[in-house]
């Protein structure tokens, strides 16, 4: 564990140095496995936030879940210098390889795998291929804010931030759920990557389908339980 930074009130980014690095594809995840002294284990999957260009290191941004066995340990007990068992990179579907136009639609911590795509695109000098729409409850809950919307953020890709509960002062868009007006038109050659909770993923895909985006152009990564 090389560095731990607070990403948002409820999220930390963990930077790990890998003993045997394998370049990941933006959108892939790692499994983190914890083992207790008696052999009891718990494991969870976390998306990589960093670009594959960050050689030998990966960053995982983890939201602390209420009563989260693994996220709670990572947030409260893990320290820089500790060793962590990870496995990856995993996944070959929810990945952006850097060549085609893409619309990235993230809700809350669903931004994490999309950020790997943004960082990769910038490293390639092809951020123009991407558009980003991210939904957060409040401004403080936007991960990577300085890189996306801050005064020093690069101009590309275009980033739309949707605030569902509290909008920043002076915001032209009042707080409210993601709507059709928040989503740009999707061209025929564009792939849409949707990542977030089940509720968010369903709402976003329903809006996209209603706007005429073919199912084949939409890739979805979901997390969380239904009621």
């Amino acid at each position, binding site marked *: 564990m090389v560095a731990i930074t607070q990403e948002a009130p409820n999220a930390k980014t963990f930077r790990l140095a890998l003993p045997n690095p394998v370049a990941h594809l933006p959108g892939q995840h790692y499994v983190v496995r914890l083992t207790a002294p008696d052999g009891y*284990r718990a*494991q969870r999957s976390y998306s990589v936030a960093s670009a594959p260009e960050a050689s030998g290191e990966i960053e995982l941004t983890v939201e602390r879940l209420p009563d989260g*066995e693994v996220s709670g340990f990572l947030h409260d007990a*893990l320290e820089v210098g500790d060793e962590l068992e990870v496995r990856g990179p*995993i996944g*070959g579907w929810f990945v952006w390889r850097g060549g085609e136009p893409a619309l990235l639609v993230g809700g809350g911590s669903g931004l994490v795998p999309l950020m790997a795509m943004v960082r990769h695109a910038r490293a390639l000098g092809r951020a123009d291929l991407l558009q980003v729409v991210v939904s957060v409850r409040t401004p403080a809950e936007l991960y990577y804010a300085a890189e996306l919307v801050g005064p020093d953020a690069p101009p590309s890709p275009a980033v739309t931030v949707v605030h569902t509960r509290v909008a920043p002062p002076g915001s032209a868009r009042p707080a409210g759920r993601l709507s059709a007006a928040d989503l740009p038109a999707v061209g025929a050659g564009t792939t849409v990557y949707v990542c977030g909770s*089940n509720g968010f993923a369903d709402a976003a895909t329903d809006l996209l*389908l209603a706007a005429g985006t073919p199912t084949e152009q939409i*890739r979805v990564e979901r997390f969380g*339980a239904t009621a």
Partner: protein
Amino acid sequence: MDVTKGFFGRSRERDPRLPPGQYDTGSGWPVLTAEATPSIDTADWTFAMKGLVGQRTTWTWDEVQALPPSTYEGDIHCVTTWSKLGVSFAGVSVDTLLAAAGGAQPSATHVLVECHTGYTTNLPLADVTGGKAWLTWEFDGQPLAREHGGPARLLVPHLYFWKSAKWASALRLLDHDEAGFWEQNGYHDRGDPWLEQRYQGD
């Protein structure tokens, strides 16, 4: 195995129904789908047994409902580490579907499950025969919800749940193994939760 410094985990009162590395999701039922959730009208729905079967057979919604019913009561296990214990599904046994299609040809060794969305998953034939697999349309006495694969999904509860393909449209019997959607993307060809066959190489 290396112990994680500072990790002691939750209570050790582990339910013996939980395979290694799994946790009980309780009353929740996480939804994991790589695609947009389709809306499939039962009027347009069909299911087929094809490939190396006695005769290719296709059922409409009303026809499949008229087959002898069969139920599963037990547990399901997702590769993303949740398990759901003590669930019940109702539908028809794959054995019934296969018998109605004239049985498997002697050369058949594997099946590829096809879906209305284009999703596929592969299994050894022996994992869907002998009372181990169902085509289901009812969960805990209610019609199977759209996000959980309704109107009908495959159910292969002794394997990780990605094998229990949502919105299933056909079983294709093959004389060889052919990797499905997640299997091409690094997941295990068989997926036995008790052996933790999560990814290729496990």
